[in-house]
């Protein structure tokens, strides 16, 4: 393969993996922006939801799309339950405490999944579209990867439009900015926060369903992705949806290119140094609107 094509192929592959990070990052950012909580359990929630889809298909022979629908429904309910159990009761308190609670939740969920499926995992998971590659120009890209990139772009666009042009989105932005003032203006703060958790969980579950064909369904599926999702979110700027997507894609490309051309071993270090460098130049992320101290 000629050098130029190989490079482009690396970049394309990087875009695909970066899109996965971005998809999860969108969920994380949504919850973080509105409820001020860094949800460490987002990945595990997505993993459990995906297992639900698997169980639906396995036990009842449901077709994939229907099972996915059930899975997203479950995710929404899960998001609400967790909001109720964790975020709400500590709403007035310190977000840091809630964040560490989600860490506890992550540990518990992961172990629970392991105890149930530990022996028989991992499982193959069907993809929404075929995984086989198509030829675009002189390089190949998997249809599934294209679907993931499309999903991320759509989701980001959806969130962007929602936050910018709808009343509910405006309410969410108000809550994100200042809860007390929002409450004084008659916005049902708790309801908005609950909605963000629900939607965040659904987005996460969607990400899980798209990961699973490639990474196989197991309790370890999301390990390593969550912190990358956070890093990507910070890189892009927590207050900007396009930023999150760009951050994700960029990070994916950096990872791949560094891995391919520099070193597989040092790649994580170099990738993260890149993030730090970007943060030094733009402390609130690439695409941030400058809210001093508000990240």
């Amino acid at each position, binding site marked *: *393969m000629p050098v130029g094509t*190989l490079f482009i*192929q*690396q970049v394309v*592959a*990087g875009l*695909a*993996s970066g899109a*996965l990070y971005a998809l999860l990052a969108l969920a994380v950012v949504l919850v973080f922006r509105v409820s001020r909580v860094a949800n460490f359990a987002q990945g595990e929630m997505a993993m459990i939801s995906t297992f639900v889809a698997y169980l639906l298909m396995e036990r009842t022979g449901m077709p994939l799309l229907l099972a996915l629908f059930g899975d997203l429904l479950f995710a929404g309910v899960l998001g609400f339950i967790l909001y109720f159990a964790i975020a709400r009761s500590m709403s007035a308190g310190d977000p840091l405490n809630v964040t560490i609670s989600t860490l506890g939740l992550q540990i518990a969920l992961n*172990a629970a999944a*392991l105890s149930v499926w*530990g*022996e*028989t*995992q*991992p*499982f*193959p998971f069907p993809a929404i579209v075929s*995984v*086989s*590659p198509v030829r675009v120009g002189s390089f*190949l890209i*998997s249809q*599934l*990867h294209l679907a993931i990139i499309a999903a991320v772009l759509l989701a980001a666009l959806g969130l962007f439009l929602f936050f910018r042009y709808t009343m509910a989105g405006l309410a969410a932005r108000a809550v994100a900015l200042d809860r007390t003032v929002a409450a004084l203006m008659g916005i049902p703060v708790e309801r908005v926060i609950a909605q963000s958790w629900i939607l965040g969980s659904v987005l996460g579950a969607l990400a899980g369903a798209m990961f699973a064909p*490639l*990474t*196989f369904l*197991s309790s*370890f599926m999301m390990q*390593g*992705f969550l912190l*990358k999702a956070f890093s990507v979110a910070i890189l892009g700027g927590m207050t900007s949806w396009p930023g999150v997507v760009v951050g994700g894609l960029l990070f*994916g490309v950096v*990872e*791949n290119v560094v*891995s*391919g051309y520099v070193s*597989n*071993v040092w*790649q*994580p270090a170099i990738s993260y140094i890149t993030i730090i460098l970007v943060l030094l130049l733009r402390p609130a992320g690439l695409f941030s609107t400058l809210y001093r101290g508000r990240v």
Partner: protein
Amino acid sequence: MIRKLALATVIVFLAATVCQEVTAQAQPATATGVTADTIVLGSSLGLTGVTADIIKPQQSAIQAYFNYVNDNGGVHGRKIKWIVYDDQFVPQRAVSNVQRLVESDKVFAVYYIGGTSTTAAAMGYIKDTKTLLLFPLALDESVFQPTIPNVFTIATPYTYQERLLVDYLVNTKHVKRFAMVYANTPGNPQAAAAASDEAKKLGADVVADVSFEGTTTDFSSVVLQLQSKNPEYVLVTSVIAPAAQLIKTAKVMGFNAMWAGPQQMVDPLITKLLGPDANGILGVSITKSVDESDPGVQHYIQILHKYFPDSPPGLFSMLAFATAELTVEALNRAGVSPTQEKVTQVLNNMKNFDTGVTAPVSFSPTNHLGINSAIMLQIQDGRAMIISK
């Protein structure tokens, strides 16, 4: 205040040292780990952590066999008690688990440490204390070379396996272009290097040598690095899940090469994860294949499913089962009052013991690697035996 503190510390220090000396004297000289009705064995396994998916079935296989033995009279009337500690596949923890087993639980022998790096870490302690170590899952040459008197194994190391594999591929399949890909975890780089050396010795080319980190989540870069060099066969040395991910990613990216590797590459789990994409994968295995209508394999599946009906049969599970069988056989042969010395003697004299799921096992005082041959398997809608060596 500082003075008070210092005085307290000094007193305590002296007291501790004195007491430590006193208690050190009172050590019994009988066979540890054996009581009137039990024999205690201890293991350190990665029950949670990166190896969980292959270790759990192994745990079930062993427990199933011990249960079976216990239900049928035990070993000369004694039941086997098997203590397992989780080391999460972290060498650190394995060492402290082994310490705990030997000093706290006073096991008869340390049995089946579940990993090459964990065993390596604990080896220093095992050698120093001359604890009997039976059949660790350590696919590394240093376990039996040079021969350690208190350590026995049947795990033919990856280096041997890969050499056999390369021999087969070059001599029988006339492969000229190899690529090596491996996870950068203990033991794998050496195995890949052994395979490379063997290939070059036989006149083939090694066109690519790619490693990936244990934490890698995305394999597109690795695939591209391999793809660009256009190999005929790619030898993969890694645990199952990443290997499967790699192959899947390769298919997704349109990279069509033939795949081969050690035992895990032809484990039923690979077929489960890859489906039809798994066809054609070649592997070297210490155990027989699972789908055979072989009485030994059937016996294994029967016992496994009697106690753990959900446990998936697999190659590593069979290997674990074989070690359990060996251990019980050795204990049986050691007689009514077993000691570590008797068991060692028994093993040193064991010739051609048939476990039913592997080639016959033999040891001698200078050879503590029980199985020196391997079986070549290829996935074809399941698995098939090709050659035995």
